[in-house]
């Protein structure tokens, strides 16, 4: 199994190397003429007047938390999908219960309005 993952590892190193090399070439051959206006953060024609790092709508955190939960559920689905033919109707019903609980949670957040955006 590991010999199949060796190319993956080398690919990761090559991928990182390609990014570094391209950036390196770019920063060597490109001109470098700093300028106060050019290097200031982009705004619509005026100087910026506050830091861009402002606290954000809690909704984005909620999306991220719900994403973690659903991602975990996906992780449980993967082995089940592969073993489905061998675990019989029992395994199917086990996942049915799991999915049922997930759907209850999903309906809960839907009804609470956690999926609404304005």
């Amino acid at each position, binding site marked *: 199994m590991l010999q*199949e993952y060796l190319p993956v590892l080398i690919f990761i190193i090559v991928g990182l190397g390609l990014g570094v090399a391209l950036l390196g070439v770019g920063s060597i051959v490109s001109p470098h003429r700093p300028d106060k206006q050019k290097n200031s953060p982009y705004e619509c024609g005026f100087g910026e007047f506050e830091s861009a790092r402002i606290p954000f709508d809690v909704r984005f955190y909620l999306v991220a938390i719900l994403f973690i939960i659903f991602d975990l559920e996906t992780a449980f689905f993967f082995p089940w999908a592969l073993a489905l033919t061998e675990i019989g109707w029992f395994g199917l019903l086990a996942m049915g219960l799991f999915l049922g609980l997930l759907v209850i949670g999903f309906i809960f957040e839907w009804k609470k309005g956690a999926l609404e955006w304005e």
Partner: protein
Amino acid sequence: MIMGLLEELPAFAWILIKIVAILIPLLLGVAYLTFAERKVIGYIQGRIGPNRVGFRGMLQPFADIIKLVFKEIIIPVRSNRYLFFVAPIFTLTPALIAWAAIPFAPNLILANINAGVLYVFAMSSIAVYGILIAGWASNSKYAMFGALRSAAQTISYEISMGFALVGVLIAAGSMNFQDIILAQQGSLLNWFFIPLLPLFMVFWISGIAETNRAPFDLAEGESEIVAGFHVEYSGVSFALFFLAEYASMILISFLLAILFLGGWLSPFEGIPGLDEWFAWVPGLAWMLLKVSFFLFAYLWLRATFPRYRYDQLMRLGWKVLIPTTIVWIPVVAVLVKLNVGPWFS
């Protein structure tokens, strides 16, 4: 130890050659996809598109590359210099390394791993870092908004994408890409897009949203947040984001072709007469044909549909696509259990 490594050297060199053989066509594909995009959208809108550099503009992508390389890389004063500089690498690398597990033709695959689908899915889930880091390190309002929007969008659609993948895994009973393609053997009717039609649509839509392409390109939204998370980027560092976006577009097209349209399988398989007629066409050609269709669809959709609003986008992801997959996964599971033909018998 060094002796041990030296003995492996020929094997390493061979793997490196294979990697280069994947990367160079991929990068050329990216270059000509940008060209095709400008041409196709140009013709759809009744324009000609680029036609000055080379024969009918064929050298345009190279002109663009040379231009971008020689442009200054601006690093804004109030940014976090190091993170700002490395963020493009965080975006590009995940988009490239997913290609390690993609089969191009029978046995033409770099790493034939058992958990291929999971590997590609895991790698595409890392891509969100480049966006977040770029947006945050720029320390610019538009970049921050863009990064936040695009991160929330990417993760929302990743769920429906994962669920759609589960459907394919149930149908194929394997996570190995070659096995998944071979499970669709027989004829055109055996391809998974028929029994998994809802999941096919979900995966397609989520794939477009995952790559932040029109009509789901809110992260870029020129008219409101100028270009999103990469406003502050210029020169090569901007080019890397571009490269990553187009490489993942091609990746999504490959995934669609492999998972739902039978990968390298001929569409005339099992039809007496036509099957023999087209027997000389290599698998790679069928694969690339299917991939080109999805790539063209990307451009076609961009030229046709207006951009979504953010609440519509989130609604589509959470309230339409996810419920669809939750309904269809049990349906597929029962179909497989009951050996419903012609797909699962």
